[in-house]
């Protein structure tokens, strides 16, 4: 697609988005005066495809472990459906971009469960070790793999302290166009970058909220007015393996 057609497509999309939003606004007003519906979470602002990423932003997640229930795997399912990775019955080689972890204190017996995914480190070891630069951190803090230059050496998997990455061991079918994958390359949570760029929340966050748990909060860690920054300022939170000093973009509350 050349520049002109990209621009046309963007204008068309913006026009449609405007009409949809206008329609939704009219519907909201018509439903009942005085009642406000939270139709549009204000977490992210849509970014034009040709616009550079805003380096003043740092996207992050806050996971409230107390709100995460043991039997719920909605975030995992939502991620799998959104990004097209499936568990094919071979746990050794199946990709898992997000997993539910259960930890138990062997002395007290106290247990907790919560999701773990790529922690989108500020100083990501996977990016440091990648020989070709396929592992990279976007200016807004999202850590990604460029599938076009990943040579499949798996050194990033050796380096990741969170076991967040998977290697594609088998040929793939039925891929999602917004989340391209490739046999012989490494992949991990993208923080649903395709959704974030269009102003939406990651699929796991949205699903957790719609299931009524609200254990996951997404937002701009650098914006003091964002919900996530306010929560981080008000409550004690933790980073997994904080001792490594990686400045993770994913934080945990009540862990």
């Amino acid at each position: 697609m050349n520049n002109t057609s990209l621009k046309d497509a963007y204008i068309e999309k913006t026009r449609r988005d405007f009409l949809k939003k206008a329609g939704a606004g009219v519907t909201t007003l018509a439903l009942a005066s005085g009642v406000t519906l939270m139709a549009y979470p204000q977490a992210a602002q849509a970014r034009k495809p040709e616009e550079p990423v805003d380096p003043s932003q740092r996207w992050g997640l806050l996971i409230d472990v107390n709100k995460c229930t043991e039997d719920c795997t909605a975030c995992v399912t939502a991620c799998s459906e959104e990004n097209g990775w499936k568990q094919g019955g071979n746990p050794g080689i199946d990709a898992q971009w997000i997993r539910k972890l259960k930890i138990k204190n062997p002395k007290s017996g106290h247990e907790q469960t919560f999701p773990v995914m790529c922690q989108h480190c500020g100083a990501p070891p996977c990016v440091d070790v990648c020989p070709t630069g396929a592992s990279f951190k976007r200016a807004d803090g999202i850590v990604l793999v460029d599938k076009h230059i990943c040579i499949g050496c798996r050194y990033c998997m050796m380096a990741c302290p969170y076991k967040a990455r998977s290697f594609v061991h088998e040929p793939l079918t039925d891929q999602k166009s917004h989340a391209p994958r490739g046999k012989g390359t490494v992949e991990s949570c993208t923080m649903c970058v395709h959704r974030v760029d269009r102003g939406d929340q990651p699929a796991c966050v949205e699903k957790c909220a719609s299931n009524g748990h609200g254990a996951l909060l997404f937002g701009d860690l650098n914006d003091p007015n964002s919900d996530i920054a306010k929560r981080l300022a008000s409550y004690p939170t933790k980073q997994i393996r904080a001792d490594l000093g990686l400045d993770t973009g994913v934080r945990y509350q009540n862990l």
Partner: protein
Amino acid sequence: MAKHVTYSQIGTGKGFYSILALFGVFIAAGAAAFLHVEHHGHVATGMTNQIVWGMPHVFAIFLIVAASGALNVASIGSVFNKSAYKPLSRMSGVLAMALLAGGLVVLLLDLGRPDRMITAITHYNFKSIFAWNIILYSGFMAIVGAYLFVQMSLGMEKYKKPFGILAFVWRLALTTGTGSIFGWLVARQGYDAAIMAPLFIAMSLSFGTACFILVVKYTGKATDRPLGTAMTWRLGRLMGVMAAAVLYFTTVRHLGNLYAAEHAGVEQFILFGGNIFTTLFWGGQVLIGGLVPLALVFAPNKVEGSSRVTLAALLVILGGFAQLYVIIVGGQAYPLVLFPGMEVSSSFADGVVGSYTPSLPEIALGLGGVAVAMVITVMAMMAFKLLPKNLSDAALDPHLVAKAK
């Protein structure tokens, strides 16, 4: 130094073609294994998302590390002026290049996207120790190639020493880089130790000398120019010193880890876990690859001949493979510690010891790499005058005869 050393190519008789054919079978098997994995994906191997590096890496890193060590003999001759080693330095350089080529073949063909090999050169992340190694490996080939050229060209005598020194420094850097691939992995309890660099240097000197002894001994025997007994013992003892250094660095590494409570788990797992890694560590690396070869080369009352050195070299190589298996696979099999002191479980094998069974294609690919190294060595010996016509002690260094044993 024996003056007027005359070098010659090895013959091109039936025996050599039979050896080439034998190695050719292994190369063909390795090529078939590569195509199989390339087509089906790494599901055809025993490697998983827990054990991401397996048997191909054991072979590749052994060959790469041994390559650097195979240059020992040339370095001792050129850099340290030990005249008895000088006639063997051409062979030393060629074997070093051949082993490195074999190792790189395995490493590159195991990539998830081997078709993108060129990307490793066109896209470069200078912060990656892996990327540094690409420069170190390419540089090693170029420098040792130039070193060989000045050794084999008339009138280049004065350049031998500077190139020898450059090659010596470069190979130390190369093995430092290879060790640091593991040493700089801060995330994993089994690695994350700066001592990996000197450990790998010691390993390279030991494994490389062992490979050199076997290749020169066998070639000498097959081409009617047997390597002198005193020279063989000298090489054997050199290897023994390096094998002792490997044991020393291994001891310091494990004692250091045992002292830190955070590493106690992985040490318990490797040293006393009663698993395959425990067996390979104590039985393979320490006993077969360490103590027995040391006893063989340093015990008094040497018997006639040098068969004990040959056996010791063979055992050092076997122990080397065991050691690399423990470091590479064992280091990954021990689960990553995300929450120290907690019991962890998940659908992604958190908190579970990783299981790994090498598949046939992985082993075939690794052996194919060894065969590539050997074929390059044999063909180089057929094409170039690498070995002196006479490898006897008297021809290599008259002093050797006097000091023999």
